[in-house]
C-alpha cells in the first residue's frame, strides 16, 4: 500500500483507466441506456418511487388540513420544513461548484463526475423549492411570492425582505443550473441519438439533441457559451447560500444575527454537497460499473474537498462561540451556552461529531482511498449537516428573549414522512437520470483522453509559456 501511494505521488494518475479508445467510451456510456433495466434497478426504483409517493401524499395532506398537522408551535415557527429546505439547497451546491468553479480552474478530473453532480443539484433544488412552498400555509397563493400585482390588496412584494431575495436566488439558481446541465448534455444526447437502435428512443434523443451534429463551427460558439455559463454560475453558487443565510441574519434573534453566516453557510453547503456526491457516486460506479471513469483519484480529490470544507465549518462553529462571548451580549452568550448544554444539546453534539470529528480521518491517504471509510464518513456528514441546520433553527427559536414564551419542538409523523419523501423524490429522479441520460459527459471525457487533442496544439502552448 505504502509503495503504491508513493508511486502515485510521483506520477500523475490518468483520468480514465484502462486506456480506452474514443469509440469504447461511446459504447460504454451509451450502452447503459440501451441495455434492459435489471432487477436491482427496478427494485430500487420501485422502493424510491413508493417513498416519493408517500412523501407527496403527506404534502397533499398538509395542503388539505394546513400546517397545523406539523409539530410547529408558538415560539418555534420554523422546524423541519426550513431545516429540510436549507439542507437540500446546500446539497445542491456541489454540482455547480464541480461544473463551474472547477471548470474555470481547468480541473480536468471534473469531466467524469460533473454530469451526475449537476443532476443531483437540480433534483436537490427541486426538493428545496417544494419544502419552502409547502411551509407557506396557503400553498395555492404561491403567486404572492412573485412581483405581480395579484394579491388581495393589489400590492407589490417587499423587496427589502430577505425572503423575497430567496425567491429570486433559488429560482435563478434552478434555472441557470438547468440551462448549464442541458447545454452540457446536448452533444451527448446527439451521440445517443446516433447510437440507439429503437425508433422511439432515436426520436426522443433526436428532439432533445436539437439537431446537434458535432460541427466545429457550432463547437466554437458552444465552448464560449459553456465558459460564460460557468463564469455566471461561479458567483451564483456563492450567492445562493449567502442569500439563504440572510433569511436568518436579517432577523434580530440571537444566534442568527451574525455576519459570519454567509461564508459559513456557503462552506457548509459545499461540504454537504460533496458528501452527497461521494455517497451517490460510490453506489453509482459500483452498480453501473463505471470504475474506469470515476476512479480513486476522483474520490480522493472529493474527500480532500470534504476535509477542507469540514475544517472551515468547524472553524465557524468555534468562531460563533468565541464571538458570542466576546461581544458581551448576554442574549447571544446565552444562546450558545444553551446550544451546547440545553434541550437540544444532543443535536448540537451530533453535529460536531459528524461534521468536525469524522472527516478528520481524511488526513490519511489510505482512508481517502477506502470505499467503506468514505461511504460511512459521507453519510455522517450528510446527517451532521442536517443537524447543523436543525440546531441553528431550533435553538435560537425555542429559547428567545422572554423565558415565559420558551418551548420545545418535536416533529409529527407528517413532517418525518415529508422528509423521507424528499429522499424518495431525489432517488427516483436520480435513478431515472442514470438510466436514460448519459451519466458521464461523453464528449468532455473524450476531449481529455491522452492524444485526444492535436499534438502541435500543445507545442503552441509550450512556446507561449
Amino acid at each position, binding site marked *: 500500500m505504502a509503495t503504491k501511494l508513493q508511486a502515485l505521488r510521483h506520477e500523475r494518475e490518468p483520468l480514465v483507466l484502462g486506456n480506452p479508445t474514443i469509440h469504447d467510451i461511446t459504447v460504454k456510456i451509451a450502452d447503459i441506456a440501451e441495455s434492459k433495466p435489471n432487477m436491482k434497478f427496478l427494485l430500487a426504483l420501485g422502493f424510491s418511487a413508493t417513498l416519493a409517493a408517500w412523501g407527496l401524499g403527506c404534502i397533499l395532506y398538509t395542503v388539505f388540513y394546513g400546517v397545523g398537522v406539523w409539530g410547529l408551535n408558538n415560539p418555534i415557527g420554523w422546524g423541519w420544513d426550513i431545516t429540510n429546505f436549507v439542507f437540500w439547497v446546500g446539497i445542491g451546491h456541489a454540482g455547480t461548484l464541480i461544473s463551474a468553479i472547477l471548470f474555470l480552474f481547468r480541473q480536468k478530473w471534473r469531466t467524469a463526475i460533473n454530469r451526475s453532480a449537476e443532476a443531483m443539484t437540480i433534483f436537490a433544488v427541486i426538493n428545496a423549492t417544494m419544502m419552502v412552498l409547502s411551509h407557506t400555509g396557503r400553498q395555492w397563493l404561491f403567486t404572492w411570492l412573485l412581483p405581480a400585482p395579484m394579491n388581495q390588496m393589489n400590492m407589490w412584494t417587499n423587496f427589502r425582505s430577505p425572503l423575497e431575495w430567496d425567491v429570486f436566488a433559488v*429560482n435563478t439558481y434552478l434555472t441557470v443550473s438547468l440551462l448549464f446541465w442541458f447545454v452540457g448534455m446536448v452533444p451527448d444526447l446527439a451521440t445517443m441519438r446516433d447510437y440507439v437502435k429503437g425508433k422511439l428512443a432515436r426520436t426522443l434523443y433526436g428532439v432533445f439533441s436539437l439537431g446537434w451534429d458535432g460541427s*466545429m463551427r457550432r463547437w466554437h460558439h458552444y465552448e464560449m457559451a459553456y465558459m460564460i455559463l460557468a463564469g455566471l454560475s461561479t458567483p451564483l453558487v456563492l450567492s445562493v447560500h449567502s442569500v439563504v443565510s440572510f433569511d436568518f441574519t436579517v432577523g434580530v434573534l440571537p444566534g442568527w444575527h451574525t455576519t459570519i453566516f454567509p461564508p459559513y453557510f456557503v462552506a457548509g453547503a459545499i461540504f454537504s454537497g460533496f458528501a452527497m456526491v461521494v455517497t451517490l457516486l460510490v453506489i453509482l460506479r459500483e452498480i453501473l460499473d463505471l470504475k474506469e471513469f470515476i476512479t480513486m483519484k476522483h474520490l480522493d480529490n472529493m474527500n480532500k474537498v470534504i476535509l477542507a470544507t469540514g475544517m472551515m465549518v468547524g472553524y465557524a462553529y468555534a468562531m460563533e462561540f468565541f464571538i458570542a462571548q466576546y461581544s458581551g451580549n448576554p442574549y447571544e452568550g446565552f444562546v450558545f451556552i444553551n446550544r451546547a448544554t440545553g434541550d437540544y444539546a444532543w443535536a448540537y453534539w451530533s453535529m460536531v461529531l459528524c461534521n468536525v470529528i469524522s472527516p478528520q480521518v481524511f488526513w490519511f491517504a489510505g482512508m481517502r482511498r477506502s470505499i467503506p471509510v468514505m461511504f460511512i464518513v459521507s453519510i455522517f456528514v450528510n446527517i451532521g449537516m442536517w443537524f447543523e441546520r436543525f440546531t441553528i433553527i431550533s435553538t435560537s427559536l425555542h429559547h428567545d428573549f422572554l423565558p415565559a414564551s420558551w418551548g420545545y419542538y418535536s416533529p409529527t409523523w407528517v413532517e418525518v414522512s415529508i422528509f423521507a419523501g424528499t429522499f424518495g423524490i431525489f432517488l427516483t429522479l436520480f435513478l431515472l437520470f442514470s438510466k436514460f441520460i448519459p451519466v458521464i459527459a461523453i464528449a468532455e471525457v473524450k476531449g481529455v483522453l491522452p492524444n485526444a487533442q492535436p499534438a502541435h496544439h500543445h507545442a503552441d502552448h509550450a512556446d507561449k509559456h
Partner: protein
Amino acid sequence: MKVTGVLGDFKDVNHTITAAQQVNEAGYREFDFFTPYPVHGLDKAMGVKRTILPYISFVGACAGLATALGLQWWTGAVDYKLNIGGKQLFAIQFSVPIDFELTVLLCALSTVAGLFHLCRIPTWWHPFQNDEGFKKATDDTFVLGIYATDDRFHVETVKTFMHQLGAANVRVCYDEPADATEVTATPSVVTA
C-alpha cells in the same frame, strides 16, 4: 436527387488541423469539420471568426440589471409607495441581491438563446443526414464535409481534393436516402 456535398473521414486528430488549413487556403468557405468533441485549434485552422456570443450575453446582463433596478424602484417608490420603517422608498443597498440575481438570470438566458441562434439550433434537417457514415461524427470519427452550396463546389474536383488531403471513405451525399445500388457503389470509392 440533388447533391448536398462531399464527405471524407479522418481517424487521426492530428491530420484534421492540416486538412482544415488546406481546405481554407484552397478558397472553400462552405465547409465544416464534424467532431465527437471540440478539437483545440481546429476552429482557428478552419478560419472561423471569433464568436460574437459574449456581446449577446453582455446585452442580456445589462437588460437584467436594468430590469431589476427598474422593478424595485418603480414598484416600491412610484406605483405603490411602500413605507418600511420610514426608510427611503428606494436605495441601491437593499436592491443588490435582486440586482445580482436578475443580472445573472437574464445573462444566462440570453447566452443560451444566443447560442441557439448562432448555431441555428434546434433544427430538423441536416444536409448530410442521409449519409450513414456521418453519424460516426458523434462517436469517434472526424468528418470533413464540403457543402454543395460553395461557389467552388464541383463533385469530382472536391472528391480528388479530399483524397489528396488524406481523407478515407470519400463519398457524395444526396438530399434523399441512398438506394441499394448506391450503397454497394460506396466501397469502390474507398479503394479508388
